[in-house]
C-alpha cells in the first residue's frame, strides 16, 4: 500500500498550507484514497463505530460534567437534577450510560473480530497491543464513571474493586492497606474517593483518544487485515477508502445507532441495576452486588479462584494475557477461516466468554462455582495452550492461491512474489 501521495494541491492557499502543515494531504492519503482490501465484511465496521462512540461519550460527558456535583451529598441529587430539571438532561444522561454499554459491545465485537481473523499477527502486533491498551483504559474509565451517580452499586463497586489492591498485603504485609488508603484518601471509600474518580474519569477519555490516534496510525502502516488474512499484493485487491468504506461504515454506523437509540429511548435502565437508584449507604451492602454486564466475565474469573491474591492475579492476567497473543499464536495463517482445528477452539472460547458473563451474574456457589472454574481454566488454556500448540500441529486449508502470504511459508507460495507494501513513516505524517 506504499502508494506515493496522490494529493494535488490546486489552489494557492492549498499549496501554501501544504508546505506548512500538510494536514489536507494526510487526510486525502489516509482517509480518502487509502487502499483498503475490497473484501472487508461488516465485522470490520466496528472500528468506525467505536470512534463514533468515543466521540459520543466525550460530548455527552463534557456537558454532564457541567451539572454534576462530585460530593458525597451532592452526587446522587445532581444526577437526579440532570434527569429532572436540566434541559435534555435525561437524554444526555441516558445516552451516556447506555453509551458505555454500546461502547463495550462494539469493542468486544471488534476484539473478537481481531482474534478470529488473526489481525494481531505480524506485522500488526503494535496495532493489537495499542488496542489492548485502549481496552484497559476503557475498563478503568467505565469503572470510574459508574461510581459517579453514587448509588448503592456505585459505592460498593468502588469498595470491592479498590479492595482488590489490598490483596498485595499477601506480598508485602501492609503494602496493600497503605495503597488502598492512598486510593481512597481515607479509611474507607468516601468523598475524597468520589472526587478523584471524577477527576480521572474526565481525564481518561482523552488518553483513550490519544491511544486511538496511535492505533489508527499503526493500522495505516501495514494497512487493514482482511477476512482471508492474506496480504494485499496488487492494486486490484483494494478499493479506495472513500467512498467505498465511508459509505459501508456509515451504513453500519446508522444501524448501530438505531439499536443505541432504541435502548436510550425505550429501555434506558435495561442494562442497569435498580440498586443504583438507592443513594450510597456505607452501612449496608446490597444483597446481591454485580458489576455492569461488560465486566461480568472478569468478575466470574475473580470469583472462580478461592485465594484472594491469586484471584486478583487471574483477573488482571485475563486482560494482560491479551498483550502476548501475537506471540502465543504460532499459526502460519492469520484467518481462522482456513484453520479447521483452531476454529473449534475459537468458538469454544467465545462460548466460554459468554458463559463467564452469565456466571458472573450468579451467586458463586454449587454448580455455578464449578462451571466458573472450568470456564476460567479454558479461558487461560485457550491462550496458553491452544494458541501455541494448535498453531504448530494444525494443517491449514489451502489459501486463496493468487496472493503469497509471507507468514505462511514456502509451501503455499504459488503466485507472484509479494511486493513491499509498507508505507514509510514520513508518508503517514
Amino acid at each position, binding site marked *: 500500500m506504499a502508494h506515493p501521495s496522490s494529493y494535488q494541491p490546486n489552489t494557492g492557499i492549498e499549496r501554501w498550507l501544504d508546505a506548512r502543515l500538510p494536514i489536507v494531504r494526510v487526510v486525502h492519503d489516509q482517509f480518502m484514497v487509502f487502499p483498503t482490501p475490497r473484501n472487508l465484511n461488516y465485522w470490520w465496521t466496528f472500528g468506525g463505530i467505536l470512534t463514533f462512540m468515543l466521540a459520543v461519550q466525550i460530548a455527552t460527558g463534557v456537558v454532564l460534567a457541567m451539572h454534576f456535583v462530585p460530593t458525597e451529598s451532592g452526587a446522587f441529587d445532581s444526577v437526579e437534577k440532570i434527569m429532572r*430539571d436540566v434541559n435534555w438532561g435525561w437524554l*444526555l444522561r441516558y445516552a451516556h450510560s447506555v453509551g458505555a454499554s454500546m461502547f463495550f459491545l462494539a469493542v468486544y465485537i471488534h476484539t473478537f473480530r481481531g482474534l478470529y481473523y488473526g489481525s494481531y499477527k505480524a506485522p500488526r502486533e503494535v496495532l493489537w497491543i495499542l488496542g489492548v491498551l485502549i481496552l484497559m483504559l476503557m475498563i478503568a474509565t467505565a469503572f470510574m464513571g459508574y461510581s459517579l451517580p453514587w448509588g448503592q452499586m456505585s459505592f460498593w463497586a468502588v469498595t470491592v474493586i479498590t479492595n482488590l489492591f489490598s490483596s498485595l498485603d499477601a506480598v508485602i504485609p501492609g503494602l496493600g492497606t497503605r495503597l488502598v488508603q492512598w486510593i481512597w484518601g481515607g479509611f474507607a471509600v468516601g468523598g475524597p474517593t468520589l472526587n478523584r474518580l471524577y477527576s480521572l474519569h474526565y481525564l481518561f477519555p482523552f488518553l483513550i483518544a490519544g491511544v486511538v490516534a496511535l492505533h489508527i496510525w499503526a493500522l495505516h502502516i501495514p494497512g487493514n487485515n482482511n477476512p482471508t488474512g492474506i496480504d494485499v499484493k496488487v492494486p486490484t485487491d483494494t478499493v479506495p477508502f472513500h467512498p467505498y468504506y465511508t459509505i459501508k461504515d456509515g451504513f453500519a454506523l446508522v444501524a448501530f445507532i438505531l439499536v443505541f437509540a432504541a435502548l436510550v429511548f425505550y429501555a434506558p435502565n435495561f442494562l442497569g441495576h435498580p440498586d443504583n437508584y438507592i443513594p450510597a449507604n456505607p452501612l449496608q451492602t446490597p444483597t446481591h452486588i454485580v458489576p455492569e454486564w461488560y465486566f461480568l466475565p472478569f468478575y466470574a474469573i475473580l470469583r472462580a479462584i478461592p485465594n484472594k491474591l491469586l484471584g486478583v492475579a487471574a483477573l488482571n492476567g485475563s486482560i494482560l494475557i491479551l498483550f502476548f497473543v501475537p506471540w502465543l499464536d504460532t499459526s502460519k495463517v492469520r484467518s481462522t477461516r482456513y484453520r479447521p482445528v483452531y476454529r473449534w477452539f475459537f468458538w469454544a472460547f467465545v462460548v466460554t466468554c459468554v458463559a463467564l458473563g452469565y456466571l458472573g451474574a450468579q451467586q458463586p456457589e454449587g454448580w455455578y462455582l464449578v462451571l466458573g472454574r472450568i470456564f476460567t481454566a479454558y479461558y487461560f488454556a485457550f491462550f496458553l495452550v491452544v494458541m501455541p500448540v494448535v498453531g504448530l500441529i494444525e494443517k491449514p486449508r489451502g489459501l486463496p492461491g493468487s496472493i503469497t502470504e509471507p507468514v505462511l511459508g514456502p509451501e503455499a507460495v504459488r503466485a507472484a512474489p509479494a511486493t513491499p507494501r509498507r508505507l514509510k513513516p514520513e508518508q503517514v505524517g
Partner: protein
Amino acid sequence: MATHDIPLEPLSADNDEPTRRDVLLIAAGGCAIVGGAAALWPLLDQMNPDASTLSLATTEVDISHVEPGQALTVMWRGKPIFIRHRTDQEIAKAKDTPLDDLIDPLARNANLPENAPASDDNRAAKDREPWLVMVGVCTHLGCIPKGQAVGDYKGEYGGWFCPCHGSQYDTAGRVRIGPAPENLAIPPYSFLSDEKIKIG
C-alpha cells in the same frame, strides 16, 4: 485480471445511473447533516437555565423596618434588588430633574410599557412614591453600584455610584453620568401589603 479497474471516483466515472446514485448520496449526506445538527441542539440547550432555576422567579420581601433614607438589598434570580425608602428631599430632587437632562429617556420599568418616559412617577412604585425598587446591576458591565449603605459615596446626584467605571445614578436610579447607557432596570414587582413586596 490486473487490468480491470475500480474507479477512484465512482461519482464521476460511472455512467450507468449517475442520477440515482447522486440522489442517494446527497440524501444520505443530507440525513447525516440533519441528524448531526439535531443531536447538537441538546448539547447546547442544556446550558440554558434549567427548570429549577426558572421556577425561582419570585421573592417576597418584608420592608416594614426600612425607614426613610434607608435601603435594603435582596436577592432575586441571583441578582441584587435595591429597595430604597426615599426621603422627601430625594423625591423632590428626582422630580425636579428635566427629562431632557437624562442620558436614557426611557423608564426601563418592567411593570410599564416599554416606551414609558423616565419620569420619577414612572420609576417609583405606583401610588407609593417613596419606594424605589430596582435591579442593582450597573447597565454598563454588570457591577453593583455603591449607595445602599449609609456611608457609601452616592455620586454627584445623590443616588448610586458605580465603582467599576464611574457611572452615576440619581435618586430615581436614572443614569446621569456615563459610561452606563441605561437607567437601572426595574423588575416586575407588586406590593402584597404595606409591608410586603413580591418581586418577580
